Structure formats: structure tokens, C-alpha cells
């Protein structure tokens, strides 16, 4: 028998809340934890996208066909693993896809529980790198077509970068969340490398070709809702006529963003807003929300992840930074009614 105060079924809840109130130790969720949960949400979205019916089908309309399409034109070191993966999926579509989805579900839920967060983030890094090589053909980097407009160097790489930056640890979210565990110097170094790579990819290969940029949009246009198809027509036309200029401007934005973290907080915020705005527009107008709205995508592509990454570098004041106090079961968190 469990003796409780007379609020019946709700006693369990109330008694926990009473403990929290008695402790008077109300700790808000740290920003790092919130970003971990956001990453878990994206993984959960990916897992559910992985169990769409077409992912279990054989042939060119299925997952194996999607993989084979990415392999062509790549060097052997990329082509080989991707076609091997495609062959595996072709012969055992249900088994392989179930395993792939299962891993993503495990990563999502693993991040949620404190005890498994590190293991899940570690798995997130390994899985993301594996998918990048075996499933995304290294994001098209070796083909010279990995422009950030199209998601280059591969949306899945940002899952790995976020997992590193959001690794549990540290005591304060100041000066920005990404530095909490790895430190300010390492976090800034990662930031500069990421945006430096994006700047270079915007300019090399077909990245500054108007026709190639336009085909990024037209290639995704099929099956999109009316409002997005309309946006596509505008962006495709813009890229066809001003593609090279757009590529150069994107590279400039990337360089500004890279330098932004070395500026005073207020100036950093301005550069981050610029970077977030640009990649939000790219995510919708060029990447078409990863193609999810047309019902044939496995992830939201890079735009969303770049925005999340940029937010982890947002300069925080004392009031908004985490205290570093670990939350315990029973502690009251002011969220939801």
C-alpha cells in the first residue's frame, strides 16, 4: 500500500512537486540540454521519415535506387561503399531499413535520458559520418557539386558537429552554448572551419554555375505544394540570372559569419542573424525543406541544422545562461501549463 494525500491518482505527481517545492531548488533546464533535446527531435523526425513506405521498396523508386543515384560519378573510394550499401538495401530492403530507422530512434531517445546522452551523442557522430560516406556519397564533395545552396557538404555532417559541441559537460552556457564543453577556443575553431568550408564550397566546382544552381531548385520542384512551387519559380529564375553573384554573396556571408564570433557580443549577434536569415531562406527557397513536403526525403537537409548550429553560438547574458546545476527527478520545471 502506498499512502498519499487525498488527491487520488494525481498524488504521485503532487507529491513529487511538493518535494521540489520543499527543496526550493528550482533549476531551469540549461541551454545546452535544450539544444540536445532539439537535436533529439530532429533525429526523431529522421527516424520517422526513414519508415515511410517508399523506403521499404526495391528498385529505382526505393531507397536503394536513391543511393545508386548518388554514387554515380564519384571516385571508387566513395562509389564502392555507396553501391555496396545500395546493394545491401536492394536485397534486404525491409531488414536494412528497419535497422536504419531503429538506430535513429535509439539515438533520439538515447539523447533524452541523462544516463545515455553521451552514448547516444557518440552514436550520433559515428552514424552521421557513416551515412555521409555510405549514404550521401560524401555530400557530393568529390563531384565538385557540394554547394551550401544544395546542402553541401552534407546535411548529416551537421548532426556530428552538433553532437560534438553539445557533448554534456561544463558548468555554464556562457559565453555561448557551443563552448560549454569543448571550450571557447575549440568552439571558435570549429566555427571558423565550418564556415570556411561553406565559403569555399559556395565558390568551387558547380557552386557558382547559374545553370547548376537553378537545377538544384528545379530538380526538387516536383510534388511540392503550390506555395513552395511558387517560391521555387522565383528562386530558380533568380539563380539562373544571378547565380554567380548569389554564390559570391553567400561566400561573403559565410566569411562574415566565421569572423563574427571574434567580434563583440552585439556585433556577433548581428552576424549570426545574417547567417540564420540567409540559411533559413536557402532551406526553404532552394533546399525545399529537404524535400520532405514532396514526400520523398529522409532528412531536412542542411539549412535547418545550420540555423541550429548558429543558435548554439548566440552570446548569452547571465540571465539566459544555464546555472550548471543538474536537475534531479522531482524538481519543478516551469514549462507547460
Amino acid at each position, binding site marked *: 500500500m502506498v499512502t*498519499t494525500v*487525498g*488527491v487520488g491518482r494525481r498524488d*504521485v505527481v503532487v507529491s513529487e512537486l511538493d518535494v521540489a517545492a520543499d527543496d526550493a531548488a528550482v533549476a531551469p533546464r540549461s541551454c545546452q540540454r535544450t539544444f540536445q533535446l532539439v537535436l533529439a*527531435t530532429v533525429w*526523431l523526425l529522421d527516424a520517422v521519415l526513414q519508415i515511410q513506405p517508399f523506403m521499404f521498396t526495391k528498385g529505382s523508386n526505393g531507397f536503394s535506387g536513391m543511393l545508386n543515384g548518388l554514387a554515380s560519378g564519384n571516385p571508387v573510394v566513395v562509389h564502392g561503399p555507396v553501391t555496396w550499401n545500395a546493394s545491401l538495401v536492394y536485397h534486404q530492403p525491409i531488414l536494412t531499413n528497419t535497422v536504419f530507422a531503429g538506430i535513429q530512434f535509439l539515438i533520439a531517445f538515447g539523447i533524452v535520458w541523462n544516463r545515455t546522452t553521451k552514448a547516444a551523442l557518440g552514436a550520433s557522430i559515428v552514424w552521421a559520418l557513416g551515412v555521409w560516406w555510405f549514404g550521401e556519397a560524401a555530400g557530393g564533395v568529390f563531384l565538385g557539386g557540394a554547394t551550401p545552396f544544395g546542402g553541401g557538404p552534407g546535411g548529416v555532417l551537421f548532426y556530428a558537429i552538433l553532437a560534438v559541441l553539445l557533448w554534456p559537460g561544463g558548468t555554464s552556457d556562457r559565453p555561448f552554448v557551443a563552448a560549454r564543453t569543448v571550450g571557447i577556443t575549440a568552439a571558435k575553431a570549429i566555427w571558423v572551419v565550418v564556415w570556411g568550408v561553406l565559403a569555399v564550397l559556395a565558390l568551387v566546382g558547380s557552386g557558382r554555375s547559374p545553370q547548376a544552381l537553378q537545377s538544384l531548385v528545379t530538380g526538387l520542384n516536383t510534388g511540392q*505544394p503550390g506555395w513552395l512551387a511558387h517560391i521555387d519559380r522565383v528562386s530558380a529564375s533568380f539563380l539562373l540570372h544571378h547565380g554567380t553573384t548569389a554564390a559570391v554573396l553567400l561566400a561573403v556571408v559565410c566569411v562574415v559569419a566565421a569572423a563574427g564570433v571574434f567580434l563583440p557580443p552585439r556585433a556577433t549577434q548581428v552576424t549570426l542573424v545574417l547567417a540564420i536569415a540567409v540559411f533559413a531562406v536557402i532551406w526553404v527557397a532552394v533546399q525545399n525543406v529537404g524535400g520532405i*513536403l514532396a*514526400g520523398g526525403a529522409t532528412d531536412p537537409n542542411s539549412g535547418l541544422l545550420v540555423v541550429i548550429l548558429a543558435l548554439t553560438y548566440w552570446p548569452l547574458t547571465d540571465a539566459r545562461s544555464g546555472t550548471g546545476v543538474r536537475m534531479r527527478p522531482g524538481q519543478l520545471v516551469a*514549462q507547460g501549463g
Partner: protein
Amino acid sequence: MGTPSWLYYLFAVLMLAVAAYGAVLLAVSVPMRQVSGRDVDVAHIFMGTSMAGMFVADWAFGANGFWELVFSILLVWFVVRSLQSIQRFGLHVPHEAIHAAMSFAMLLMYWYPMGASAGSSMSMSASSSAAKLDPGLGLLLAVAFFASAIFTLANPVKGVSHHGSHIRQLVMSGAPGAGPADATTGSGTRSVGAVEAAVTAPWLEDASHVVMCIGMGFMLILML
């Protein structure tokens, strides 16, 4: 290779399990004279049984008009409860908001049946010429449900998905439906059976909400 009907059966069973659990919670709450959380239990019963019928056509029952009426009532109820919560506790995201969104999503599923590309076992399949749910809205709702699932699981306070984080204040103030007013003094102390306590464990309530969120999110993704 056909579409994986076993997957739909799996989700249908999970949805029925959530509905059955909601019925158990509702039954248990009656002798306990508790009202808090009953609305979520009722919503889960209807949503679970309805969605099971969407995943497996043979399990569907009831006219669409009936389900639309049910979810319209639930939508209005949860919107009103959300506004009351904001009025009482200030600007915040009340837990009723996600249940309102889920009721709205259920309505959308009836208003915009799935396209012809859907699985053959699913009852919501319609001709490709039928009106289609705006994929942007569908994705937005699906992501909201996935986020709710993740943040509910991560919340150190369990049971918030059914009762909200202000249940303590409501109980202590003796608010109608939250619990007996004498809870503040402890004079109403009574015993709860171990089985009863296990069945109504807050983490189980949260688990049922998480399963419902994922099931509904999956259905919305299928409708894109």
C-alpha cells in the same frame, strides 16, 4: 515489394494500447473523484481508436461525421482550457495546447484523407484527386508532436503531459477538478492500492502521450 503492412499493424496496436490505457485511467479516476487529466484520457481514447482505424482499414468504425464532431468538441475544449490556463498563470505554453493541436490534427486527417500513394491497408486512402492537406501544415504539426514527445520524456517532473506543471498550485488552491481542497491540510489522507498506483504512475501517463505523439506524427508524415 509491397508496403510494410506490419508497420501499420504495429502502429495500430500501439494506438489501441494508448486508447485502452486512457480508458483504464478514466475508470480509475472515477472512484478517486479526480477530474484533472480526465480530458486527456478521453481524448486519448478517441484518438487511439480512430487512428488504429486509419492505420488498419479493417479496424475502422464510425462515420467520419461522428469523428469530426468528437474532435471538434475536443479542440474547442482544449483551446478554452489553454486560454483559462494562460489567464490564470500568465503567458506560457499550457499542456492543453498540444492536446488542442492533436485534436486539430485529427480533424485534418478526416478533412483531407490520404492520397492514393498511401499503403493499401490504410483506411484513409482516397482518390488522388481528393483535396490534400497542405504539407507545410502537416510537417509543422508533426514536428510539434515529435518535440512534445522528446521534451515530455526529458522532463524530470512526470505526468505533466496529462496534468500540466501547475497541478500543485491548483490542488493547493482547492480549484475545482484538481483535487480535494483538504489536500492542503492533509486531512483527506487516504490509501491508494499498489496496483492502482502502478497503473496510474505519471511516467506511464507520459509514455502514452509520447506514443500518441509519434503515431500521430507518423500519420501526418504519411499524408505529405
